[in-house]
């Protein structure tokens, strides 16, 4: 017994180190797969409040740029609205079939230089934000909500190891998956393009609508470079994000009204 106490006294520094390091690594490993990151994620209220304060101050400096962007987006939306109106017989039927709703929000914290980046916004469950909703900027897709507190929510940015997005090439309807390899936050990668499809530089890439998170046809980016595969099976393309992650401020949370129904449907299918 005495020897044990002496052993502990002598080596407590190393033992305590090992203990604390194990605790830290367990915390880290819990956040390592997308599913677990989403389950264990709690948006920290104190951190969010401090970020909010800072964002309130720094927001003034980019007002001009943000206003111009919003104006452009408004103009674009009005144009689209006019086109849609022409095609619709009555306004009532449009309301009934509206599946996606958009909740406007402001980014209060956002990183782009880490391997795994997160976006914190100033809307929480009080505003109807829940997990697995999409996050889009005026320019294109930005992320997926993974944690919600009362007034704030955290989104996994597309600039994250576990973020994958189902996309579609606008000109030939080819479906593929997009993800970010780290490094330059303007560039993403599509790795599973069948070899008969050869995307050209400048080809537009939109969301496929297969994930229930984003509606079909939201801008993702354009092809920057096409890389032929060496073994002749799947081609790779580098994609320039249309969203400027470095300047993210006004965003929209995408709410899918049919989400529960679609989820229930996919569990029925897998149960069989």
């Amino acid at each position: 017994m005495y020897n044990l106490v002496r052993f502990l006294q002598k080596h407590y520094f190393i033992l305590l180190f090992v203990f604390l390091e194990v605790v830290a690594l367990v915390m880290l490993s819990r956040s390592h797969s997308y599913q677990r990151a989403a389950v264990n994620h709690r948006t920290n209220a104190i951190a969010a409040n401090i970020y909010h304060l800072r964002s309130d101050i720094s927001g003034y400096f980019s007002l001009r740029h943000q206003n111009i962007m919003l104006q452009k987006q408004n103009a674009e939306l009005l144009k689209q609205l006019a086109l849609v109106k022409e095609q619709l017989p009555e306004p009532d039927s449009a309301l009934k079939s509206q599946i996606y709703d958009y909740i406007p929000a402001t980014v209060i914290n956002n990183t782009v230089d880490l391997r795994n980046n997160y976006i914190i916004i100033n809307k929480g469950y009080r505003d109807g934000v829940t997990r697995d909703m999409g996050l889009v900027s005026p320019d294109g897709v930005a992320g997926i909500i993974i944690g919600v507190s009362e007034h704030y929510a955290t989104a996994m940015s597309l600039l994250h190891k576990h973020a994958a997005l189902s996309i579609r090439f606008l000109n030939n309807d080819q479906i593929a998956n997009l993800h970010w390899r780290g490094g330059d936050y303007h560039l993403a990668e599509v790795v599973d393009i069948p070899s008969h499809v050869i995307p050209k530089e400048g080809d537009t890439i939109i969301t496929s609508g297969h994930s229930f998170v984003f509606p079909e046809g939201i801008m993702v980016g354009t092809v920057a470079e096409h890389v032929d595969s060496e073994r002749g099976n799947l081609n790779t393309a580098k994609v320039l994000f249309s969203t400027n992650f470095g300047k993210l401020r006004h965003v929209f949370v995408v709410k899918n009204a049919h989400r529960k129904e679609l989820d229930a449907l996919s569990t029925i299918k897998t149960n069989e």
Partner: protein
Amino acid sequence: MNSLIFNSLRFIGLVLLQVLILNQIEFIGYVNPFVYILFIMMLPLSIPGWLLLLLGFGTGYTIDLFMTGAGLHTAATVFMAFARPYVIQLATGAKQPETVNDPGLSQMGMRWWFSYTLSLVVLHHFALFILESFSFSQLGYTLIRIILSVIATELLILLLSYFFSARQGKKK
């Protein structure tokens, strides 16, 4: 008592500097300096080992709360706190400097302080970036990030410790 107040203020100041300013600025693409570890470096030499480790844990955890990377900075900072006594031994030789209790630029001299901080920054950043990418597949990219971030952090730490020591010098 005095030392407790100084260290608490330094902790708050460094965390706020890290979270509110440094984490928001983009340095040349993917460089992010982490100066909050200066807090661990400037703790008194006579600090008991268990307190050193616990403070390392607490500091890392605080940063993690802000950076949504649960456990990442905690693991790296605990590792750095663990390495600190050994780095001090290496830097000073077998003999502890008996007259100095608070390590700093003015107390220890430029040469000592530089090798001491650089060693700890390298150890911390290695642990941090390897754990973050969690794979050796992009080792080249990770190494570039480590090297650039080590340079950025070390420069800022030298700058800050000059500031800290100038202030302490005036007090004396």
